[in-house]
């Protein structure tokens, strides 16, 4: 049996934390793109599109992320696609993130005064131009703090990827516990590393919120 020093534990957790960061970035970027598409779809104000996006958001906000991960993992397998855990995790987290971001951004777009839409209409701008030049730049202002804040939820959400076997920070913690029998120390360090990732993001979100004067 190999002896683990504290540094061995922390070093291995730090190495695994890279995967937490990578998975978070992939989910956040992918979720942002899909979320933007959902937002635009909703802003077309076609009844069917609005209902579909509403249902999509309700579906992902009303079910556990853990179940979404399982469904992605076993659903793709049921389709005959044997995908690795990281792919299922990235897919589920992307869809989950897109639903929340679409909803956050919808709130920000709704907060843009109706007169701005009318003014853009009066200038003869098309749908895409209205969004690109009038509405979205204004929504971006109030949308940045909650978007940054949601990144914290994404980072924390990646911890669930450990359950389907993706070796990120939490899974690495479990494996080190199994080797060292020091759950107290290891999980405390795991929590501390998540905190080190998330707390600066939380602070940044709050600083942005104060600067834009949203509250």
């Amino acid at each position, binding site marked *: 049996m190999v002896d683990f020093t504290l540094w061995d534990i922390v070093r291995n957790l730090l190495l695994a934390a890279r995967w937490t960061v990578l998975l978070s970035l992939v989910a956040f970027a992918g979720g942002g793109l899909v979320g933007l598409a959902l937002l635009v779809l909703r802003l077309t104000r076609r009844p069917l599109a609005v209902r579909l996006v509403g249902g999509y958001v309700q579906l992902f906000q009303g079910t556990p992320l853990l179940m979404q991960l399982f469904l992605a993992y076993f659903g793709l397998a049921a389709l005959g696609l044997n995908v690795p855990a990281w792919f299922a995790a990235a897919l589920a987290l992307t869809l989950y993130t897109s639903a929340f971001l679409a909803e956050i951004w919808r709130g920000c777009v709704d907060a843009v005064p109706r007169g701005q839409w009318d003014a853009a209409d009066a200038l003869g701008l098309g749908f895409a131009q209205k969004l690109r030049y009038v509405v979205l730049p204004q929504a971006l202002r109030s949308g940045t703090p909650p978007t940054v804040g949601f990144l914290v939820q994404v980072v924390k959400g990646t911890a*669930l990827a450990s359950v389907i076997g993706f070796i990120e920070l939490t899974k690495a913690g479990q494996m080190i516990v199994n080797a060292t029998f020091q759950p107290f120390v290891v999980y405390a360090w795991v929590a501390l590393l*998540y905190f080190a990732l998330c707390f600066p993001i939380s602070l940044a979100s709050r600083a942005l919120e104060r600067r834009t004067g949203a509250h």
Partner: protein
Amino acid sequence: MSLALDFGAVLIDWPLLARGAALTVALTVAAALAGLAIGVAGAWARQQGPLWLRAPVAAYVELIRNTPFIVQLFFIFFGLPSLGLKLSPVAASALAMIVNLGAYAIEIVRGGLLATPRGQVDAGLSLALTPRQVFFLIVLPPALARTWPATASQIVIVMLGSAVCGQIAAEELSYYANLIQSRNFRAFEAYLVATALYLALAVALRRALMWAGPRFLFGRSAAQR
């Protein structure tokens, strides 16, 4: 690609799913009651409590809000026994959910307290109410009413998060979904049925909370203040 689904193999085990859903609901009710109590006490402590208490409460809120629930759960269930605190899976799940919801509730209730017009406090004091009476009779009810939609959402989030508790063998809904799929190898169907049940629970829980809040917690008059 062929997809042959068999939901019958899962639905035949409905008594297990019902038992799991019952524990999920029970855990959520416990977390909601105790978490809300922590929320009120913590928000009071941060705003009017003794100075030595404010920093620890703020630290507790930040620590919980910036770490994943699954890590909090593992720390409580696997880590605390080294300090001599050994909990059953259900007790550890309940404790983790309470501690988690408590931190969010403190922030939510605090936001409601901050929105109290100063004049209401002055009016209460001028009626010779004690500061404690002013807090519980005048400031708190409308603060809870103002923030109730956010509180209800957070309780729903904690309920959905409790799906992780099956990982430490607390026999809630996701635990039984896992058990069923390990027996009949219908993983996708089992988790799809469980997911649908969670969705139904989330919708029902939100409705129940929006109904119960004004009736039992802060009174209908506070909701209009």
